[in-house]
Structure formats: structure tokens, C-alpha cells
């Protein structure tokens, strides 16, 4: 079984890699299998990991409590609300009452908007301001003073670059230009970092083909 699985994995690997040459029937076959299998996998894992324990088991537990203990006060009944909202989502498939699916959609969007309004204000703004409040001049330490000054200038100019309601002209334009230079340094650093990790992924695949499958690399 394992050998068969290994051969399947290796052939599919080669099939996907053939895309580097050009789009071809083998790649298209692998792509179709990939999409179908992934959609099926995603639904099954979502069902067993989320839907089943959260909805089915909880509602079943609440019903069991009602039947055996005669007790209706059970928090688990609240999962019925989620179930109802979920069914409303499915009503999208019925054209005449499809507008009902806006309710669960609004629920999701509203909860996200409220939460992110606060969390981004705290993490992206407050925390970043706090981290950037650094002394420009540190007596006796020229190196740190210069570093802190560069950080301050970088943040200042970067923020100026993102101003939308003023044209980038004159001194303002100059600061914005410095800002985009700082941003390009960051993007270059990200790029450089990522190159190494992507190369290691390729090495992993080569190792699988030549080592695990063909046994040429020990």
C-alpha cells in the first residue's frame, strides 16, 4: 500500500512540475484531481471537527437533558440559533426567498467589523505608537541615537507617504519619497527572506523524488 501510495505521490508531483514547461493535459488532470479532492476533504474535516461537535452533539445533549432530567434550561439550546442562521444561509438557493441569506451574512460581517475596529486600533495603532516612542538622543551612545533617529524618520516619512488628501509636492513630497524608499527596503528584506525558504521547499521535493521514491539519495 505504501509503495503504491508513494508512486501515486511521485507521479502527481511530476505532473504538477510539468506546468513549468507549459500547460498540458497531465497538469490539467492533476489540477482537477487536486481541486476535487481538496473540496471533499475540506467539507468532511469541517463537518467532523466543527459542525458535528458544535451543533449535533450539543443539541443532542440538550434534548437528552430535557427527556431524562426534564430540565429545559440548558445553554446548549442556543446552538439552535446558529443552526437557524445556517439554514437561512442555505435559503440562498431558493430565488424567491434568497434575500433571507443576508441576515446570517450581516451577522458575520457585523461581528467582524465591531471586533476588528477595536483590535486593529489597539494592535496596529496604540502598540506601534508605544513601540516608536524612543529617545532620539541617548547620551553616551551615538550608535543607538543614530538608529533611533533613523527609526523615527522612517516611521514619520512612511506615514507621510500614506497621506491621501495632500499632493506629494515640495517638502511634503520629499518626505513621502523618503518614506517609499524605506518601504522598498522593507519589501526587499521580505523578498530576500522568502527566497531562502522557497528554495528549501524545492529541495524538499527534489529529496522526495530522488531520495524517497527513487532511492538515489541516501
Amino acid at each position, binding site marked *: 500500500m505504501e509503495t503504491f501510495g508513494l508512486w501515486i505521490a511521485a507521479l502527481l508531483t511530476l505532473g504538477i512540475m510539468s506546468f513549468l514547461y507549459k500547460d498540458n493535459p497531465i497538469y490539467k488532470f492533476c489540477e482537477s484531481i487536486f481541486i476535487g479532492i481538496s473540496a471533499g476533504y475540506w467539507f468532511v474535516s469541517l463537518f467532523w471537527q466543527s459542525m458535528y461537535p458544535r451543533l449535533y452533539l450539543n443539541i443532542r445533549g440538550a434534548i437528552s437533558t430535557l427527556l431524562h432530567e426534564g430540565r429545559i434550561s440548558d445553554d446548549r439550546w442556543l446552538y439552535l440559533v446558529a443552526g437557524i442562521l445556517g439554514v437561512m444561509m442555505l435559503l440562498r438557493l431558493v430565488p424567491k426567498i434568497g434575500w433571507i441569506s443576508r441576515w446570517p451574512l450581516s451577522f458575520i460581517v457585523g461581528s467582524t467589523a465591531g471586533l476588528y475596529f477595536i483590535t486593529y486600533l489597539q494592535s496596529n495603532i496604540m502598540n506601534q505608537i508605544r513601540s516608536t516612542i524612543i529617545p532620539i538622543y541617548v547620551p553616551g551612545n551615538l550608535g543607538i541615537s543614530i538608529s533611533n533617529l533613523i527609526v523615527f524618520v522612517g516611521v514619520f516619512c512612511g506615514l507621510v507617504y500614506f497621506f491621501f488628501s495632500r*499632493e506629494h509636492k515640495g517638502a511634503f513630497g520629499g518626505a513621502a519619497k523618503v518614506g517609499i524608499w524605506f518601504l522598498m527596503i522593507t519589501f526587499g528584506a521580505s523578498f530576500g527572506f522568502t527566497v531562502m525558504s522557497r528554495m528549501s521547499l524545492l529541495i524538499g521535493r527534489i529529496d522526495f523524488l530522488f531520495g524517497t521514491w527513487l532511492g538515489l539519495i541516501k
Partner: protein
Amino acid sequence: MKKTKFIILIIPLILIFFNLSSPQEKPVPLPPTEVKAFDTPNDNGHSLSVTWKLSPDDGAGKNNVVAYEILRAESPKEEFEVRGMVPSGENLFDDKGSREKEDKNYLPSHKNYYYKIRAKADNIFSESEVSNPAFAYGQWYHTGKTPVLAGVIIFSIFALTFITLARKGKKLYIRPLPGIEAVDEAVGRATEMGKPILYVLGLGTAADIATIASFTILNRIAKITAEHRTTILVPCYDSVVMAAAQETVRAGYLEAGRPDIYKEENVFFVTSMQFAYVAGVNGLMLREKPATNFYLGKFYAESLLLAETGSIAGSIQISGTDEIAQIPFFIAATDYTLIGEELYAASAYLGKEPVLLGTLKAQDWGKAVVIICLILGALAASFHFQFFLNLFRVQL
């Protein structure tokens, strides 16, 4: 004689031996005093805190205190249970309980508890007096989050002010953005070539603000494509996003007065697995050969795969994301890139509605306030005024 000498020699040796082997009596440390129990502030009502005055033998006197043990009971006469330990030198302990009744660590609200502190020196200890009774209760307001509340109020004032000004007809200037200016040209190109437009919302869910920002842009572009009678294809990663995208595109076609040419199957679900989604979209790009590709939303490692394949297919590509790690790839592989906040500003650029321009102005004022805070903060830090730094300290 020899026997006597032997006894005289051996007895002291025996006495020395016993003296060395029996442990010396270690002195008991003095107990901590002034034990005070109180409700832990800014919590959900299931935590108590205890503070005490350090034992005189902690860091002074006999200097033999190694740790403090915190004990709790429901009444002074009941048996106390150990709740935790802190090293010597510390005089505060948060007794965090659970709110679940089934949990072993359950600490109910509004129930009195008593505390004692043990000053420990290896295996010996001394105990303090029993503390005052204290009960836990939840607060209505978390004082540690006041800086965030201030931020909410300030930003909301800016937003509402500029929205009001914009509604009154005040003209608000916005500088040109190359990525947005290229949209009309990009859609026009697709119309001339008779090829579709591909719009990729990214891997975000409907719970991502970047995706919601992208919906606004999608609506505008759908309206333009409807006016030009160009096909727009929207492959979706998430089912909820697909549902919202279908509503968005349909609304765009309605606004353009062309609901008859809207096709729901053009806004479809692919799969919810990252690289399978990419494989599907790549295949779509190579087969349909769209004239223009839009990548606007949340992207991760797949960004380069999408952008490069689109480049191979010969499409004009406009991208935008708030994921900083993916922007270099979009810059390298696409024609125009909206960097970070520009993605959120794009809807205002495309629609030019006063209300949207007003919030853009509020964002700019927000940045101005941040810059002022940074300048003042740098000066405060340089002159060691710690209070300014504390203004931005958020306790969670």
C-alpha cells in the same frame, strides 16, 4: 590504662559524629504581615488578589525566606488549601479562578474567601494572620483599556466631522493613485479584446476587513464591466465570500441598469484549500486568458503563483493587499500595486462619494495625530518623561 585512654579518645569522637549527623535546628523565618485580600480589578469576576508586607527575614534579618505560599479557605476555621507560590521579594499574587462550575479551579463570584501567607525557608515556614474576607465581582469597565477608548472617540469624531462636511458639499482633494487610475484603462482593454476580467478576492473570509474592502471595489468594477458588457469572473475561496460576492456583483449590474446580463455562475466557489484554489485559478487564467486580473484582498504565499501565471497569460494586473510579506511579489509581478492602506482607500477613489472621501480625510487626520504623538513621544523619551509612554500602555 590503655583502656581508659581509648575511652577518653573515643567518646569525644562519638559526640562529634552525632553532632555532625543530626541536623542543626534552622531558624524559622518571621511571618509576613498586613495580608490584604481584594477583588482583582478589570476582570470577569472570578479572580481575587492578595498582597502582604514582606517577612522581616526576606532580604534582611535571618535572610532565609525563599518563597511565599498563598493559601485560601472559605472560612477562617476551615482547612486552607494552597493556591500558589511566589518567590521571595514578591508581595502580590493573583488567585485566578475559572468561571466554569465543572472546573476544579472554579471561583464563584460574590463569595467570601480568606487568605493566609506562608513564608517558606526550605521545609520550615511561618504563617501570617488570616486576611480580611474578600469576594470577586466583575467590573463594568476595564480601566486599562482607556487609551483604546480615547482612540475610538478621537477617530470617530474625525470620521463623523468629515462625513458631515462632505455631505454638506465641501470638496475634498485626494491625490492620484496610479493603480486606481489604471482601472478604467484595464477594463477598456478587456472590452476591446473581447476577453473577460478576472477578479480574485484573495484567501480571506467574510470575517476579514480586507475582503470587505475588496467587495466595494468589486462592486465598482462590476458596474463598469456591466456598462461595457464585459464578462467578469470571480473565483472564490470561501463560501460565505462567494455569497457576498454574488450579491455585490449583482448589485453592480443593477446599478448599471443591466441586470439581464448578470450570470451567477461567473461568481463561483473553487475550493477552500490554499494551493488547490491557486491551481484552479491558474488553470482558469491559462484557459480563459483574461485581459485584466485584479488581485485585491488577503493573500499569502500563493500571491506570486497567481501573479506570475497571470503574467504568463499576458494579462494586465492590478493588485493590492495589506499583507506586507506579499507586497514585494505583487510589486515584482504585477503592473500596479496598492500598498496596505491604499487598498482601503481604493473604494473612495473609485466611487468618489462624499461620505467615503470624508472617511479618507478622517484617516489622514488620524495619521496626523499619530505623527504628533510620535514627535511629542520622542521628546518625552529623550527627556525621560515616562508619563507619556504610559498614556499608550494598554492592559489586556
